[in-house]
């Protein structure tokens, strides 16, 4: 599973870890995040994320 980077603030979503405190279980692929997902740091949506280079 690929990591995704927030193009606004640089936050990295790591699917291995998920974001348990936001109710996103470890092992959740970026593609499987709900459309309502927002960057936990700066608040932008999924469309502002890019696969990590």
């Amino acid at each position, binding site marked *: 599973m690929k990591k995704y980077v927030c193009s606004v603030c640089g936050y990295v979503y790591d699917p291995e870890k998920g974001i348990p405190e936001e109710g996103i279980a470890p092992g959740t692929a970026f593609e499987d995040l709900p459309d309502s997902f927002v960057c936990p*740091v700066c608040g932008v949506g999924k469309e502002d994320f890019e696969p990590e280079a």
Partner: protein
Amino acid sequence: MKPVKITDNIYWVGAVDWNLRNFHGYLTQRGSTYNAYLVIDDKITLIDTVKEGFTGEMLERIAGVIDPSKIDYIISNHSEMDHSGSLPEMLMRAPGAEIIASANGEKNLKEHFKWDCKVRAVKAGDTLNTGKYTFTFVPEPMVHWPDSMVTYLEAEKILFSNDAFGQHLATSERFDDEYSPDIIMEEARKYYANIVLPYSPQVQKALNDLSGLKIETIATSHGIIWRRNISRIIEAYKQWSSNEVQKKALIVYDTMWHSTEKMAETIAAAFSEQGYNYRILSLQQNHISDIMTELLEAEYICVGSPTLNNNMLPTVAAFLTYMRGLAPKGRKAMAFGSYGWGGQSVKQVHEILESCGYQMLESAGIKFRPDDEALKKIRESLIKAI
């Protein structure tokens, strides 16, 4: 207006905003400053600028040292307009100057000013040599914008920290050893609670990034420059960014006919009984930005609103919106209020507090005026729950 010397080659050339009282909703009761710094070397560097409208004051100070057209570099640590507002005019005054910013800063400046001029984008650890001085750039995204950056000058052990460690405080004194340390810290605390708080995890990362640097001066973009109490402000940032709480409860409310107010007093009494410090904060008398400062290390936040036309009072909604954005973490919370019918406000307040991830105490809603019996019940069940 004269420049203020920091070291032999470095000058404060900013501006003082004596009249600022509202920084998008933050009550800045002591005004503020926009700090810009001029560094004289073989090449001349200006670090940040000031808010539009204060450009003349900055230019006068620069002219007290050198002809502004001689500026070679302008480091833009942060593209928010209180620091970038003078950039367009500075580019006209110093047409040869090159702007230096973080990669996000470059994007922001170009989009914001609709520029196609050249901005040099730097990344962590990049440097700029101006003769005998070498500046090192450290982008600190989300402290407090995606573009935020700090600049370190090793030769003088100065950190140009931009908004970090700042205070909204208008003074002619420029250094922390020239002014009341308690007032500076109070304003630094209010600044943290109202601007920096949501980015506490990024602050911790930034403190870590900076921990290896030898820093003798922190040249902020607002307020006083730190040179005596550096460890005090660094320790305070460690503390504030930790989200650690103390035995303290805030009871924040508005009231129509004093019923919700009575409940607020009863709730405060229960906390007092349990050995908590507490603050009873009416939204009619207290500014939401001052309440945020009090909330910085409070374990409990209790919010009360009567029901007006099936809704919470607008003052309470405004406070909750502001607080949710500033996102203090890991608190315990409670909703309360009185009502004549319906009583929707208590549930609305409860839902917002719960959406902040807070551990919720049972809500207290009372129809019409709370009598002694009803207040006693609230007090007793709260004492058990705390």
